């Protein structure tokens, strides 16, 4: 998830709308669809990436998705051995069916700040019992990554990193070296964090307020309508015509 607060972007969607788009994609993909509708849905993440100024992400995704579409169209012409053929069809189907949702999910996590997400969750009436663990989880992801990097350094100094002789002497132990200090550090940070949060009134039974404001605006509505309209149009056009 994006750690910076939302920058003033020209194009900015409400987190609730983003999640709704994802839910729509995931639901529609459950059904058997023709290739044109699947392509239309596949284009949604491209659009979302571009609004978030992630051109390289959009290109990478387009290539993978485009190849799968091509593989699907020309599947009858592919004359390879049985196993390879199957792998291509399976992988292609996997990408066509699941990648749009994967990519949208990734877009949501990258383009939404934690506070925005929390405000949105609390705006839809999510319980405190969910909100607190969720925000703690998002705060701990970078902690885990950082502490793990430090442990990686320590292991490298001791010669127990992958590619060193001592690592392969006892890989199980090398794994233990990694995960144990990490657990201990994260647990200790957690203890300190709990103390700090409680001393700032986390357990106050008063209804908690949020500082970050989330509003569904005209951009959100227009985007949602456009997406639904395009996909529906493609569906109607290709199935009924």
């Amino acid at each position: 998830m994006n750690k910076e607060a939302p920058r003033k972007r020209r194009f900015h969607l409400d987190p609730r709308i983003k999640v709704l788009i994802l839910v729509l994609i995931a639901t529609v993909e459950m059904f058997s669809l023709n290739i044109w509708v699947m392509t239309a849905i596949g284009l949604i993440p491209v659009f979302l990436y571009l609004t978030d100024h992630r051109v390289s992400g959009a290109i990478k995704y387009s290539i993978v998705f485009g190849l799968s579409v091509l593989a699907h169209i020309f599947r009858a012409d592919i004359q390879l051995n049985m196993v390879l053929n199957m792998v291509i069809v399976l992988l292609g189907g996997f990408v066509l069916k699941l990648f749009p949702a994967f990519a949208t999910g990734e877009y949501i996590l990258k383009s939404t700040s934690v506070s925005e997400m929390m405000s949105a969750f609390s705006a839809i009436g999510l319980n405190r019992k969910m909100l607190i663990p969720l925000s703690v989880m998002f705060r701990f992801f970078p902690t885990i990554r950082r502490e793990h990097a430090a442990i990686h350094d320590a292991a490298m100094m001791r010669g127990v990193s992958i590619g060193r002789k001592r690592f392969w002497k006892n890989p199980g132990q090398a794994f233990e070296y990694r995960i144990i200090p990490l657990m201990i550090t994260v647990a200790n940070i957690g203890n300190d964090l709990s103390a700090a949060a409680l001393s700032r009134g986390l357990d106050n039974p008063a209804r908690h307020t949020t500082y970050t404001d989330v509003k569904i605006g005209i951009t959100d509505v227009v985007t949602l309508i456009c997406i639904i309209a395009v996909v529906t149009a493609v569906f109607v056009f290709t199935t009924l015509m």
Partner: protein
Amino acid sequence: METKRLTGKDLITVGIYTAIYVAVVFVIGATNAIPIMYPISMVIIPLVAGIPMMLYYTKIEKFGMLTITGIIVGLFFYLSGYTWLCVAFLVPSGLIADIILKVGGYKKFKVIVPSYMVYALGMLGGPAPLWFAGESYWDGIRESMGEQYAEQLAGYMPSWMLWVGIGLVLIGAFLGALLGKKMLNKHFKKAGIA
């Protein structure tokens, strides 16, 4: 001072261990790009996650913590693009794991083992579309590749794979619980965090 309600401290604990669990699943799950790793990761994930989860279980004294973990993990994977089956699997598995603890008693290893094994089954929500939501997917293949081809393909992915999957996860979770228990005694208790 002790309440049955979940306090802020409990909820922070839930957040921390859920984060670790998600991180473990993500790192190991990344190898899933190679299909052959699917069955292997079904053993490895619950095995490795056994270490943080056994530490987590030492902090659980109230009903609801595992359910929340299940909901969050399910939502998180749903939001990262897996299917809604993640939620459909992880919520009940978390809830049942919680019930097992509530009935059997907290902080008892004999109770923790089955609780964790049930909880671990929730992760089958990830590959589940291959079996469940796959119907439409199979239709698609039948339609495009022909009946014969689809049958052949189904031969590679027989329906009993589901039971194999469940078996693999249960074995992984059982071993994971033992591994976690070993690490608790070897490290965490002495380090004063368990």
